[in-house]
Structure formats: structure tokens, C-alpha cells
């Protein structure tokens, strides 16, 4: 726990191109660790690309990213979650199976109780046996965010959330705020992109792109 407090996440002199388009050139950011970092910017300013780059899905052209004291790539993959804007649930499986298999793929224990508990907190327990293709986008989003509500998720170092508030209703937003606060209190770091003006968290930093 103590060592984690010293760790930090810094982007130094990053430049990134996707295809022929230059997205960043010499970007320097120091993130608040632990704490909530809210990334703001216009459409097309590279918010999603930034998260994808931090999560190693995109390769930076120049510069260095210090991820919690230079974690190795494989360790880093196991130490964070990226929740993308469009859901990453398989249409052919039910919500419960999706989450169960997701836990399994992470190498965590999976049992029905654990998943039911997480779904119940988000208020979508009754949809657990629905195929994902039959669900509305709000329920898909909640199911997606239930991934954050497992015990193992709180032990991670970092959550990368791309527009987590889209499609969510009031209860969903409240509960998301609750688990985000819980995670920050457990010395976690959150990078969140958002268009919302009002921010209810205590300890946060706004990063403008």
C-alpha cells in the first residue's frame, strides 16, 4: 500500500499519429495518483486515443509513458481496466455469462453469487439471463460497468473509463460515483473522459486536451 502511494503516472513529450493524422505532438501530462482525473476536450481532440494509448492499444511514436514506476507491459495489462464507450459484450451470450467469462479471462475466480451481487448493485439483476442482443443500451452500459464492481477490480491500480456516464440513468450515475469514490479511497487512479460540467467528487484534477 505504501509503495503504491509513491507511484505515479506521467506522460512525457508524447507524440501520437493514427494513420496520417497527428493527434498529439509533445504532450506532457502528470496525472493525479491516487485520484480522479477528468479528461476534457472537444470532439476529435484525442480523448479516446489518449486512453487507448495509456492502455497500450495504441503505440506512441515518441516520448515516454511512466505507468506506476515503469510497470512491465504484461503486469500493466493485469493492473488496469479499460471500459470503452461502445460495449464489449458478446451478443451471443447472456449478461451473466458475459461477466462470468470476462472474470475468467482475467484469471479471477468466477462464481454466480459474485456476479449476481454486482448486477444487483446496479439494479439489473432481473436481466441477467437476457441475451445481450436483446438489451437496451442503458442496460448494456450498466452490465459493462458492473465489471468495476468486483472485489478484484478494487485491488487494481487504474481504471480507464471512456464516457462512462453515457446512457446511464440517475441511479446508475449515483452508484457509479459511489464505487469510484470507494476505489479512490483505496488508493486507485481513475482516468475518465467526460462532457459533464458538474463534478461531485472531492479530489479531482481536470485535464484539458
Amino acid at each position: 500500500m505504501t509503495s503504491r502511494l509513491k507511484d505515479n503516472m506521467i506522460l512525457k513529450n508524447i507524440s501520437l499519429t493514427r494513420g496520417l493524422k497527428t493527434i498529439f505532438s509533445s504532450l506532457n501530462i502528470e496525472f493525479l495518483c491516487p485520484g480522479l482525473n477528468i479528461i476534457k476536450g472537444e470532439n476529435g481532440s484525442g480523448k479516446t486515443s489518449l486512453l487507448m494509448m495509456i492502455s497500450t492499444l495504441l503505440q506512441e511514436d515518441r516520448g515516454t509513458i511512466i505507468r506506476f514506476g515503469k510497470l512491465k507491459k504484461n503486469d500493466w495489462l493485469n493492473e488496469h481496466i479499460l471500459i470503452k464507450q461502445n460495449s464489449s459484450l458478446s451478443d451471443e451470450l447472456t449478461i451473466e455469462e458475459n461477466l462470468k467469462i470476462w472474470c475468467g479471462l482475467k484469471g479471477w475466480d468466477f462464481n454466480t453469487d459474485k456476479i449476481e451481487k454486482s448486477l444487483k448493485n446496479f439494479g439489473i439483476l432481473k436481466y441477467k439471463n437476457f441475451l445481450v442482443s436483446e438489451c437496451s443500451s442503458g442496460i448494456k452500459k450498466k452490465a459493462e460497468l458492473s465489471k468495476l464492481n468486483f472485489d478484484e477490480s478494487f485491488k487494481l491500480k487504474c481504471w480507464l473509463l471512456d464516457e462512462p456516464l453515457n446512457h446511464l440513468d440517475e441511479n446508475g450515475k449515483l452508484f457509479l460515483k459511489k464505487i469510484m469514490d470507494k476505489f479512490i479511497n483505496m488508493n486507485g487512479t481513475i482516468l475518465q473522459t467526460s462532457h459533464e460540467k458538474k463534478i461531485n467528487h472531492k479530489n479531482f484534477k481536470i485535464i484539458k486536451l
Partner: protein
Amino acid sequence: MKINFKNILIALIEKEFKSYLRSINNFMNMIVFMIAIIILFPLTVGPSEEKLTLVSNAIVWIALIVSIIPTLDKIYISDFKNGWLEQYYYSPLLLEIIILIKCFVFWFFLIIPLTIFIPIFSILLNIPFLIIFWNIIIFAIGSLGFCLIGSICSSLTLGTKSNNLISPLLILPLAIPIFIFGNGVVEAVKSNYDPLPNLYLLITVCLILLIISPLISAYSIKIALTK
């Protein structure tokens, strides 16, 4: 954090098995396609038995290969579209191994059941029993290699414009060694030679693919994910 690799394997196999089970109409499509080709051949070649015995073995093979290709070149596309390939990328297990398992599951649940149809079609076309037996063996081995080639081609074409027909174009030239050696086995059996050398060559090709294919597929999937 403790990572339980047994859980990863179980989850992976469960996922693949369930999604194949729920898209069972793919499997039905394959069978319907096969039957259509088998019926078309006698109609176009003519019903005389001498002509048919010359090409009967080829008919069975063409029916199998052509019916597999449309499913094979979409082995990753649905996972790519709904984000599961990314989840595979984040898994602590190496992507190469996940791909290998995925190919095995595909082969075991979708391709191996097709071997039941080889004897049925072969009887329709009067193929001798000995050759039916060898056909089943060659198909079981060769189709694994075929799946691995399909894995390369479908991972290369991830993210292309929809409705393009490139991957069949890629699969066929790469699969030529499998066809040549598979045909070599049958020819050897027909003319009473030893079929084993060709069979060993076929197995060698499949073993080489077993090593190369996951590496190339994983590399091109990683490229596709960054788009």
C-alpha cells in the same frame, strides 16, 4: 494479485463453445451447402458411373472445402466487432495461446462433426471403403491445418470494408500444400503404394502451421486492434 490460469482456459472454452452452439445455423449452412454441391456435380458431369468414379473423391473434397471457407474467414469478425478480441488481448494468457485454443475449439466443434458426412456422401458417389477410411483421416488432420490458415487470413482482413471477398483468395493459395499431400495419400492408396510418406508430409505441414499461424494471427490481430 493471484491469477488462476485454469479459470482462463475454462472461460475461454466455455465462451467459444457457447457462441458456436448459439450460432448453430452456421453449421447448418455448411451442411446445406455441402449437399448442394454434391447434388450439383452429378447433374453437371452426367450420371454415367465411369465419369463419376474418376472425380468422385474430388467432389467430396471440393464440397467440404468450399462449404468450410465462408465460415472460416469469419472466425474472428464477430469477436472483433463486439470487442471480445480486446478482452483476449488484456487477458494474462498470451494472445498466441488463446488463438491456438480458439482454432482448436473451432476445429473440434465445427469441423470434426463434418466427418460424419464423408461416409454418407462417399456412399452416394460409390467410393470404395478403403478410400473412405483414408479420406476421413486426411480430412481430420488437414482440416486442422486449414483452420490455422483460415485464422491467418481472417485476422489479416479484420476491419476491412464489409462484403469483400479477399480472404478466400488468400486461403486457397496458402492451403495448396495441404491439398497436394492429401491428394498424394489418396492417389497412393488407389495405386497400392505406401500412403505413409505423404501422410507424414501432411502432418509436418500442419505442425509447422501450428507454430507459425498463432504467431502471425496474434501479430495481425494486435495491428487490427489499434485501428
